[in-house]
């Protein structure tokens, strides 16, 4: 999600008809966007917080939002015809750029109706694209320069950091590349994008002046745009030419709509290929049947003809159920036919589609595992136990230290946002004890159980771990003892025909002589006993607790 903050007056200015905020919201929702809030600014101004979904690059500005609304409400019907003057200026991409940031695309804006407002909007679009489609400048970064300060041809190349030094924006004077990454505010913020690279990318002009060091910062001398600059050089640098081209198209078409003129230039690559911006729309073919069947509607060729402009497509021709769709230059989210079909559905209106019941025959079936688990849960509830649901995310402290036991094989968690979490549970009992600790002010006896998954490390599995279904049961209270918990185990064995044997054991969480290993067909599947006073003390508990924990995997598989 991207949020665009639009001034209502500015939006009104771009809209072909006057709309109330409510009408704007309705249209946005029909388009799959949303109006998330309004804020009153000084001077009767209202700021709208508009939510744009992650694929709609063309709606990342107020201008783009207004365009979408104008088409959707039918105020605009023809696709725009963007004028792009063919220029003869050049940018040369050097072989060295390949090592760090291989691609750039560029164009020129002329006679911009420059004002602080326009400049602000340009910077806003630039930042929004950086943060979303630019993946925080990693995938793409935009640079804008006044034509007055630079001389063509421009080179895009990479140099060793020690050979790069210039006066960056928002700095006192000349700094070298290392200093910029280490001391400059913006440099520090994005230094991870260049750290460890042998060479750093730079734009250089014909006089050898450094224009910028993308994706970090422009030069103060040659890359500082002010309101008196009417002609601008715009470049986008990154890794995928197609992606950069999409971004440049959105930028330049938006600027044209804001009153600029545009001029193309030639970007020469070392392999002799040449990039030159085109703002022509492209075409795509899609079948009407496909659209009708995917969306579940029944629209005619004529219907489609009138629906397409509402979602900013042109209709070149429709013949024999094949629609030749015209896609404007700024639309960058047509990955396959379903994208066009979906746009047509948005034009049709999702809530105009008549829902129907899917006619796929199938017979319902609960997993064996679930049936088994539910049986066990029912049995424990009938024995008077309260069911707990505790988390799988936990800590070595809870799972081992407080249990007086030592760590063994488990799945480790390294960077948890929630403090204290460093593993997934291998058994449930410690988590249930935590619940008993939190509930120690409540009345006793407290009889609890949980039947749920644990995660066991298992290098035999493709994911190197496996789910293991466990049952943990605890009785806390003055009268709790080994017999009480064994009654539960014996009852479960009886009800489920389990053949279990108990062997004396020395588990450190339980009192010696009052605990046993639970065996099924010669395999250890669990433990039962009275918790050791040290474990109770560790958990701040002052009543005896007897518990059992079983691995149930073998009983239902």
């Amino acid at each position, binding site marked *: 999600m991207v949020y665009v903050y639009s001034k209502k007056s500015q939006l009104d200015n771009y809209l072909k008809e006057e709309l109330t905020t409510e009408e704007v919201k309705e249209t946005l929702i029909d388009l799959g966007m949303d109006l998330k809030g309004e804020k009153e600014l000084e001077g009767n101004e209202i700021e709208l917080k508009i939510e744009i*979904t992650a694929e*709609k690059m063309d709606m990342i500005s107020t201008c783009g939002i207004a365009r979408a609304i104008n088409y959707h409400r039918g105020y605009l019907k023809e696709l725009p015809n963007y004028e792009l003057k063919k220029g003869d200026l050049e940018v040369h991409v050097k072989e060295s750029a390949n090592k760090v940031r291989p691609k750039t695309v560029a164009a020129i804006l002329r006679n911009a109706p420059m004002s602080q407002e326009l400049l602000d909007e340009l910077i806003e679009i630039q930042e929004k694209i950086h943060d979303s489609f630019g993946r925080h400048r990693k995938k793409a970064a935009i640079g804008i320069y006044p034509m007055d300060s630079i001389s063509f041809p421009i080179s895009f190349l990479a140099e060793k950091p020690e050979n790069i030094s210039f006066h960056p924006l928002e700095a006192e004077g000349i700094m070298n590349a290392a200093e910029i990454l280490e001391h400059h505010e913006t440099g520090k913020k994005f230094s991870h994008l260049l750290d460890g690279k042998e060479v750093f990318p730079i734009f250089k002009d014909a006089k050898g002046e450094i224009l910028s060091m993308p994706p970090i910062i422009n030069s103060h001398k040659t890359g500082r745009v002010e309101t008196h600059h009417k002609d601008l050089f715009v470049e986008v640098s990154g890794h995928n030419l197609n992606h950069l081209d*999409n971004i440049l198209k959105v930028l330049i078409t938006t600027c044209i709509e804001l009153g600029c003129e545009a001029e193309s230039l030639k970007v020469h690559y070392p392999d002799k290929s040449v990039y030159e911006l085109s703002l022509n729309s492209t075409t795509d073919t899609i079948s009407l049947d496909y659209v009708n069947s995917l969306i579940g509607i029944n629209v005619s060729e004529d219907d489609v003809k009138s629906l397409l402009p509402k979602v900013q497509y042109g209709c070149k021709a429709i013949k024999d159920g094949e629609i030749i769709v015209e896609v404007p230059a700024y639309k960058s989210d047509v990955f*396959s036919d379903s994208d066009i079909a979906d746009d047509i559905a948005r034009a049709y209106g999702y809530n105009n589609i008549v829902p*129907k019941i899917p006619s796929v025959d199938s017979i319902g079936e609960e997993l064996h595992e679930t049936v088994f688990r539910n049986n066990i849960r029912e049995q424990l509830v009938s024995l008077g136990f309260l069911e707990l649901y505790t988390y799988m995310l936990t800590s070595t402290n809870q799972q081992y230290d407080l249990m007086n036991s030592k760590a063994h094989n488990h799945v480790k968690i390294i960077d948890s946002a*929630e403090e204290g979490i460093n593993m997934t549970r291998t058994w449930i009992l410690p988590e249930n004890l935590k619940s008993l600790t939190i509930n120690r002010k409540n009345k006793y006896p407290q009889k609890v159980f949980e039947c749920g998954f644990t995660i066991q490390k298992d290098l035999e599995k493709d994911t190197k771990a496996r789910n293991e279904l466990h049952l943990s049961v605890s009785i806390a209270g003055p009268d709790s003892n080994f017999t009480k918990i064994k009654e539960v185990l014996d009852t479960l064995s009886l009800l489920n025909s389990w053949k279990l044997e108990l062997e004396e054991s020395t588990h450190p969480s339980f009192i010696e002589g009052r605990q046993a290993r639970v065996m099924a067909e010669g395999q250890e599947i669990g433990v039962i006993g009275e918790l050791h006073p040290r474990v109770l003390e560790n958990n701040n508990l002052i009543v005896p607790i007897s518990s059992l924990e079983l691995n149930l995997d073998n009983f239902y598989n």
Partner: protein
Amino acid sequence: MTKFTMNSPEIKKLIYSLSELERRVLPFLLSTTSLEEVANNSSMELHEVTTAIQLLEQREITTFIKEEISSIELDKFGLEYVGTDLPEIQVLKLLKEKSHTMNEIPKELVGSAMGELKKNKLIESVKGDNGIMLSINDKGLEYLQNNSENPLREFNEKVEVSSLSETQKEILLNFKQRKGFLRESITKVFSFSLTDLGNAVVNEYAQHYKNLELLETVDTQMLKTKSWKNKEFRHYDVQVPTSIPDIGRKHPMLEANEILSKVFLEMGFKEMSGPLVESAFWNMDTMWIPQDHPARDEQDTFYLEEECDIPQEYFDKVKNMHEEGIKKSHTPVGEFSKEISRKQLLRTHSTSTSFRTLYELSKQHKAGEDINGKYFYLANVFRNEAVDATHLAEFYQGEGFIIGDDLSLADLMGFIKVYLSKLGFENITFKPTFNPYTEPSMEAHYYDPEIGKSYALINSGIFRSETLKPLGLQDKTIIAWGFGASRLAAKLANKESMRDITGATCDLEWLKSREQMQRTIGGKK
């Protein structure tokens, strides 16, 4: 006041509900307020009488009165000196015989006497060779004469504060500054009084029920000997509130899952299950989520330390789709990395299991079997987030898909409407949205009349061709959806926050006494 005007039948009812103990004490309650007197008159033990009076108080027959009485009595020193003279008098008597050095005065007297002697200037002290020499002066002699009576004797017996004489008050004042001679003690005195109702009951009892005999519990002996015949049982107050016994209950989160699951089963769905620990391949790559997608960030995903195995043939196809896409708008990140695919993680959604299921189905599809069907899963998923009321690091997600030959967005809407309606959510509207692996993508919104706002309940869509082609399922349509089951569970349990109903912090008393969860939200329908 209502009981005061009780008529005879109501009083009878009351008398029939009295326990044997209460009935025994009843005839002795008139014209006394003392528990002891009642005990004496009735030959009952005092504690029995006390219990009976307290029980009768609950029936508003008696009022139990607790009084605190403060008295003055001798304290530690008081008890020590009451039989002899006050310490200062003892010292003066010694000095009257002859002067003494300080050391010659008994130690135990010095402490409590010297202050008084000096304050009243009754002795002279002179520094001499053997220490301080003490002698009585005229004033001392006079004092000795005037204080021949030991004032402590006035308090030989404990005296209630309310009945102190003037002399006693003065003495008390004199000893106020002197610790350990006199002290105030508080005694609790219990008594009772009869209420108006009580008077009526006692009189009625004396007139009509003196010989009333009521049986208590039914027991084997009674049944064997038929001793119950022609007798009456004591009547119980059937309205007395009771406490909740120790009952077992299911956890609301899992109870909600059972409800959600049941609705799927009723609609003919098959349940899926899959691993909690996944590879990035199954969790993201198979869904055509770009390898640089922000949702893959470590801020959202718990990455683990192992490298997973992934099926090579399927991997190659997925890799190719990531790199090439279907149409030119696709902009890959660069080379698709197997290293990233193999990363081990805690699944961030249950769609990983849907794709494992689809992978199995694709094999059957290749073998020419009919694979059309409906699948669902209620699954724990993980997000690497700090926990608050609306964000849990671990929660339940509901997930499902229908695979068929000619399914559409209209079918998806139809399914969602029926599913939600079975849970009581009506007036559902649909809104287009964006998901990396579905197109069209759609949210189902519910208008909640209670909060006057609408919010998304289900996120859904039709799986992109880019996700189906690597599976060889491009000739099928798959409609799919997911929802926050934990959030729905909180809603069904009438709780605001998911955290209220999950994890170790859940209150056991609430778990025990919470209302039965209804299948429909708010118990409607």
